[in-house]
Each structure stands twice: as C-alpha cells, then as structure tokens.
C-alpha cells in the first residue's frame, strides 16, 4: 500500500512538474466547450440539460485519453527508469495500479474542471442535477476504461507514438462495437448471440445508459471489469518483458 501511494504520488506529481498538465487541461476544457456550444448547438437546443455535452465525451476521450496513457510505461522504458522502478521493492500490482490511478485522478480533475458548464445550465434553467451527476460518473468510469486500455498498450512498446496510435485504434473499436461499423462486419455470418456479445462491449451503450440517469449495476460492473481486465493484462505484459 505504501509503495502504491509512493508510485501514485510520483506519477501525479509528474503531470504537474511539466507544462503537460496545464496544456492538457486547457485543451480539454477548450474542446469540450467548443464542441458543446458550437458543434452541438447547445443554446439552439433550448434544453436545460447536459446531454449534448456528455455526447461528445467518448469522441474527445478517444484522442485525449491515449495522450495521457501513452507515456505511462513507454516513457519509462525509453529513459530506462523502468529498470530502477522494477528493481525497487515495489510489487508489480502496486506499480501498475499506482500509475493507472494517478492518470485516472488526473483525468478526473480535468473532468471536474468542466464545472462552469454545470453552473451555466443551472443558471439558464432547472436541470435534473441527479442526471448530470450520473453523467459525470459515467464519464469518469469511461475515462478509466480508456486509460486502462492505453496503460496496457503503453507497456507493450517503448515508442510513445506507437502507444498512442494503437491505443486510439483499440479504444475506437471498444467505443463503436455497438454501432453498424462493427456490427455489419459480423452480421452476415455470426449468430445473434455473438452479435449481442460484441455490441455489449461498446463503451457507448453503457455510457449512454448511465448518462440517461439510470445507474444500472451492470454498467458499473462492465466498466470496472473492463478496467480490471486491462490492468491485469498490463501487469502480464510488464512481467513478460522481464522474462526477455
């Protein structure tokens, strides 16, 4: 636990030691705002809720979250500091989890800083704040899912660009697996059972369910299981690299 916290603090501090945190948060907030108000036509919609805002989250995360996760392991491998980390008495699970949690808390912080949009909608109308809270929760869980995927793929390579591109691709598959772009590929020949299974992997399906304000245990279990599975895979990848 002590080691987990040490890794967590070091990682989180790492974001703020460089302009990375600042730049990321500014870009994150700017694009969130721009998408919501201009592309989403927030004012024109005349609705006092944040559905439009949350609708853009999966697509923004698709590019912004791999930008956070790509460095998690790839950078350690490139600079050689991974040798230091893994020869310190830090259990592997603590290193994997500490890094992931630091990235997750950081993305949570960026998400929390979108609160002016919440203030705006409360000023303009009388939204259902329960639904909005559920939306934030869903968004945070989804960010964790993207991060866990990115964390694992970052451990595969020492090249951050490769880690980024592969993460975006895999995250994309997970995002759209319920949409025709993926389903059509299987629908000709695969049985309905498999189609349903593939569709149930979609971030969008589960995220949209939560943002409607219905916090279903199945959606929570989906995201936590996904995060756990990808983090275990991440641990396995790091351990396999030890074997050479």
């Amino acid at each position, binding site marked *: 636990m002590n080691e987990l916290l*040490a*890794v967590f603090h070091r990682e989180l501090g*790492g974001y703020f*030691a460089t302009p990375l945190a600042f730049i990321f948060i500014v870009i994150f907030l700017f694009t969130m705002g721009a998408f919501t108000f201009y592309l989403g036509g927030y004012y024109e919609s005349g609705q006092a809720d944040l559905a439009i805002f949350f609708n853009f989250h999966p697509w923004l995360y698709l590019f912004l979250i791999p930008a956070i996760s790509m460095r998690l392991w790839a950078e350690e491998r490139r600079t050689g500091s991974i*040798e230091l980390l893994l*020869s*310190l*008495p830090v259990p592997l699970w603590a290193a994997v989890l500490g890094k992931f949690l630091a990235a997750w808390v950081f993305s949570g912080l960026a998400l929390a800083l979108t609160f002016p949009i919440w203030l705006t909608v409360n000023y303009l109308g009388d939204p259902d704040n329960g639904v909005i809270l559920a939306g934030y929760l869903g968004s945070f869980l989804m960010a964790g899912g993207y991060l866990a995927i990115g964390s694992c793929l970052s451990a595969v390579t020492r090249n951050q660009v490769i880690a980024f591109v592969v993460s975006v691709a895999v995250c994309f598959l997970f995002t759209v697996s319920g949409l025709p772009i993926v389903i059509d590929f299987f629908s000709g020949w695969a049985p309905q059972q498999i189609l349903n299974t593939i569709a149930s992997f979609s971030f969008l399906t589960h995220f949209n369910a939560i943002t409607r304000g219905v916090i279903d245990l199945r959606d929570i279990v989906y995201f936590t299981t996904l995060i756990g599975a990808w983090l275990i895979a991440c641990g396995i990848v790091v351990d396999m690299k030890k074997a050479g």
Partner: protein
Amino acid sequence: MIVIDGLTKHFGPFTAVDRIGFTVEKGEVLGFLGPNGAGKSTTMKMITGFLAPSAGSARVCGHDIVTDTLAAQRTIGYLPEGAPAYGDMTPRGFLRFIARVRRLSGTDAEKAIDRAVEATELGGVLEQPIDTLSKGFRRRVGLAQSILHDPPVLIMDEPTDGLDPNQKFEVRKLIARMSAEKAIVISTHILEEVDAICTRALIIDRGRVVADGTPAALMARSRYHNAVSLTLSGQTTVQMAEKLKALNGIASMEIVPRGAETTFTLFPVSARESDVLLVDAVARLARDENWPVRALYGEPGRLDEVFRSLTRSDTTVTDGKKDAA
C-alpha cells in the same frame, strides 16, 4: 551475502549469460570486468530482479530473487547502467520518492537523504530538475539513490562512467569507505579502477567467467609479471641490447623507442621468480656501462594485457575452447 549459482539468460537463440556462479561476502568489493556485450549488465539485472533468469539462481542476503523478490530487493542498492532517474523531478523529490518506497519516513527519511546527498556532494543542485543536470551530477543522483537506505548489498553498473577524474576519485573513495560494511559488486571496463578499489576481480567473456581472483593474482597471469623495464635516454646501440640480453635468466626482450628515449622490457625465464635479482643485475650493468638511465623497475603485470588475452567478445574470433579459470 550474494550467492550466484548457474545463472543463465537466453534472449531467443542468443545466450547472454551462460552458467555464471560466484559468491560475494561482506567486506568484499567485486570488480566485474568484461568487454561490452559480455553479459555484465545482464547479470546485474538478474541479481536485482529486473530480468528473470532463464536458469540458475541468485540469492541476496538469504533471499532468492525469483521466489522472494521484494525481500531480496529491500537489501539491495542498485545503480543501473546509465543511472536512469525521473528527469522531471528534482534530486530532492526523487530521493524522497526512493525513501518512501524504501519505507523510510519522517526524520529517518530526511536524515537518510541528507547523508546520501552529503556522500555524493549533491547539495548544490537539489532543487534543479534532473534533466537539466550534467552527466556527472546525474550519475551522482543515481549513486545517492542506491545508497539511500544504507543497504547491505550494493550493485553498481559502471558507477564512474561519465565522471571527470576528480569525481572518479571521490566515488572510489566513497565505495572504499563503505566497503567494510557491505558486499559490493561494481562493473567497469576501466582496469585501473579494479586495482584501485576491488578486492577481487571477475572477468567474464561471452557470458562466462574466464578469470576470478584478486587483482594481484590476475596481474600475475600477465606475461609482463616480474618483467624488468629499463628506459634509457639518448642513442641506444646494438651492443647495449646484446649486453642486456646476455644477462642471466633472461628469456626474451622487447625494445620500444619513444621519442628520445628507448624502453627495454626484459622477460625472465621464469615469471614466478622474484624480479629483485634481475632488477639488481640490470642496475649493476647500467652503472658499470655508465648508461643514461631514466627509469628502471620491475613490472607487477599488466591487467589490460590479461584482459585482452582472456576476452574476445568484441571480435569475431571463436576458438571454441578457452583458457577458463
């Protein structure tokens, strides 16, 4: 304190480390020698738990590195090759992180950091990001990190690489100061370092131990061991060489002119015999003949020559059989 047995590492078809075995006791400084690619770093990575061995075992303070990894790692201070660190941190932040991982807290941690900072003379750069430091300072941050928890076992991969001669001297002094209380393994390809700080040297080549002994014992294997070196100034004549060669107990002679001086190296018939008699004989001859002597001494042996004769990882020569220790 360190017991290595049959340690082996394969990378695909390539065998980087091939059944290496040795032990290091408290108070010993083991110099790990070998050409680039001989397997020095790979061996150290296995002892410290960064790489998993393909076969064999490494025990540190009684803990097996594979089955009892964390306990073994707690007893080790490790300076990896190139002294990697988290470049965006300051040395102080970095050392605090290490202290925390090493389960030092509060005043214990601050005391340990102060001690390590003092030993490595990092005081002036504690608040600068490590990325902005010179190579010498970065190396010292790595050193400070490795000795922070006062470990009983120290493993250092080229601790003086990239340091200037003054810094090298300081680091050697630091290692010598700590050596009584610890078991230390350093890798190096600076041969003078072995003579300066190591109580024992292990030469490895293509993943195998080819020599193991004290630096003096290794030097005794040199063909220069107990040879006599005589340097004369001015013109030398053929007669001089003949007179030298006619002395008792001389097997062969090398003549190396350098500028206005000439060095004769006289090899005794039996390298095991003391060189005192031969030096005396040469001195007498030089005095009788009134030669302009600049230097005269008996050679202890040349480590670089032993090293070259035992190792050939970096060449393509493969003779199959080797003169193993």
